[in-house]
């Protein structure tokens, strides 16, 4: 390795605080912004060393390690992972799931099957199909798509972050920094947690810069980043992660035998 560390993340409002200062804090980091679906593949292919990937992709790979203390999580409502439905939960017989995030898609299935005991038919909703045309009872949308879809005819809008926390009492973790096996981050190791602090301290400036592009109020964007989304990966988040893994595994949505919490440990990498 030439000392460069190739890091990939998606470029959404909620990832901004994590990547804002990353390359300043660790100049050896080379940051690329990509589509969510491609990040996990690039990490698997060795095209990236570290990726901010959906939690389900982390389970599926089963061999990555976590950067400590950093995640993208909610502790209640998240507002941007929403199941729109024509009928109440228990009556949902068919559901279309946004392929944009398999983590949220699995969460929707866990809620439907494990919490509400339904067995709906599941189909995927490709990114390029307008959600307004969907014929299923319910449709899961994420991100901006969740907040910008009009969807007349859908009487219910269920916030999955809120549903999860109301049910389990735990935070829900959507994404983590995953390190490809065998990668030595060296001095860049601590940069991720420091970048989080740096980015959050500048949430106001990020909001003021990004809000006009999003067509939103800067104050709202700032509150969204500092109050709705939580970026820690503490004991409560880890418990949420473990719980989510157990449910996903039981439904066959994640492989068996994954040890969920595997931290990136530079000392072990070095001793190899």
């Amino acid at each position, binding site marked *: 390795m030439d000392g460069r560390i190739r890091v990939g993340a998606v470029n959404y409002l909620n990832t901004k605080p994590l990547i804002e200062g990353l390359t300043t804090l660790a100049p050896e980091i080379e940051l690329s912004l990509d589509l969510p679906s491609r990040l996990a593949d690039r990490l698997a292919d060795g095209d990236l060393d570290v990726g901010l990937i959906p939690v389900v992709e982390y389970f599926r790979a089963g061999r990555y390690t976590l950067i400590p203390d950093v995640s993208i999580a909610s502790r*209640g*409502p998240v*507002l941007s992972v*929403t199941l*729109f439905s024509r009928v*109440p*939960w*228990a009556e949902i017989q068919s559901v279309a799931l946004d392929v944009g995030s398999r983590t949220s898609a699995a969460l929707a299935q866990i809620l439907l099957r494990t919490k509400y005991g339904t067995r709906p038919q599941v189909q995927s909703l490709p990114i390029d199909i307008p959600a*307004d045309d969907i014929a299923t009872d319910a449709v899961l949308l994420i991100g*901006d798509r*969740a*907040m*910008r*879809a*009009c*969807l*007349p*005819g*859908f*009487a*219910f*809008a*269920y*916030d999955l972050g*809120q*549903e999860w926390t*109301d049910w389990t009492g735990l935070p829900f973790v959507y994404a983590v920094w995953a390190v490809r096996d065998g990668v030595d981050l060296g001095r860049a190791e601590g940069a991720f947690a420091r970048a989080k602090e740096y980015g*959050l*301290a*500048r*949430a*106001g*400036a990020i*909001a*003021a810069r990004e*809000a006009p592009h*999003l*067509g*939103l*109020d*800067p*104050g*709202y964007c*700032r*509150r*969204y980043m*500092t*109050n*709705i989304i939580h970026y820690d990966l503490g004991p409560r988040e880890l418990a949420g992660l473990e719980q989510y893994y157990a449910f996903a595994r039981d439904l066959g949505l994640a492989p068996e035998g994954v040890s969920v919490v595997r931290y990136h440990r530079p000392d072990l990498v070095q001793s190899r």
Partner: protein
Amino acid sequence: MSATIDRILSKAANGERITFDEGVELMACHDLHKLGRAAHAVTSRLHPEPYRTYNIDRNVNYTNVCAAVCDFCAFYRKNHDADAYVLSREELYQKIEETIALGGDQILMQGGMHPTLKLEWYEDLLRDLRSRFSSVNLHAFSPPEIWHFHKINKLPLEDVLRRLKAAGLGSIPGGGGEILVDRVRKELTKNKALTDEWLEVMRVWHRLGGKSTCTMMFGHIETAAERIEHLDRLRQLQDETGGFTAFICWTMQPGHKMADAPAAGSFEYLRVQAISRLYLDNIPNIQSSWVTQGAKIGQIALFFGANDMGSLMIEENVVASAGTVHYLTLEQIKASIREAGWVPRQRNVFYELIDERPPTAPTAAADRVGTTREVNHAESGRSLPVVN
């Protein structure tokens, strides 16, 4: 679809009244950002001031005996139940004294609909409290209670209200409104004022020069059109009397009796509050509902049409009985407003500012909401009207 929505939203954002049918169109739209932005434009136009308000009051439930038996209510008891109560005067005095000590200027007094207490009992109560605590506004008796007084005392509604006013009633809370459509009311409650009765109490009170708030509790059995019908009835009455100072909406909190009812969440709350702000063009203030939504959403609600953080509720029994309650301290309420980019000011039910002197501009992290991160206020970047 989207072009229609855009047209309705820009109409509302520009201060034009939207029609019933347009309101129904908006209710079908889940574009949270679009609805929120338009509602915020309206709020920013109506409230360009650099502050957002809160008040300090105490919710006192003088009795839990209630003859109305609402399906969603976990609070009421029958007269002979072991835990049925009517608060004694001493208990009331103490609660009011505590409220004053905490900087409060109002008590919100509501009860169940007690089957035997006579109007004289309420008049005595008001007179007594008025004379002891002359500076405290008695914000009391929701329309269903007043309608109930009118029925059991066999007195004209206007007489009941005149007498309560003369005895010291200061303003009327908008409780018991739920959804002001009889189909819904008949399904939810057994013995409670119907739509026209609820509105009539407010109408007569307003004609006597009184002020009141109004509410909507949604997310149960009502349809989208019924939500608009509710807003429409409020808007019509407000055109007629101008007596409503503020509107507050919240989602039904499931638990207890209607535990199976699907909970409408924060997404739905923000969406409906935004639409309410757009529809109720003649009601000046909208209160955020942090008691039911929690501090975070309560604060975000300030960007979805609300211009007020509502009350520091020192005591809240009805919502608490249903299992959902969020507590904030006064400093947390103020910090929520400050962190959202405004100066916090205390107001009374008439929306008059009552803090002794305007607080100075916020300084960084003077006081913070519990788990909220410190923010640099110089960077808060609050923007003013974005009328699209």
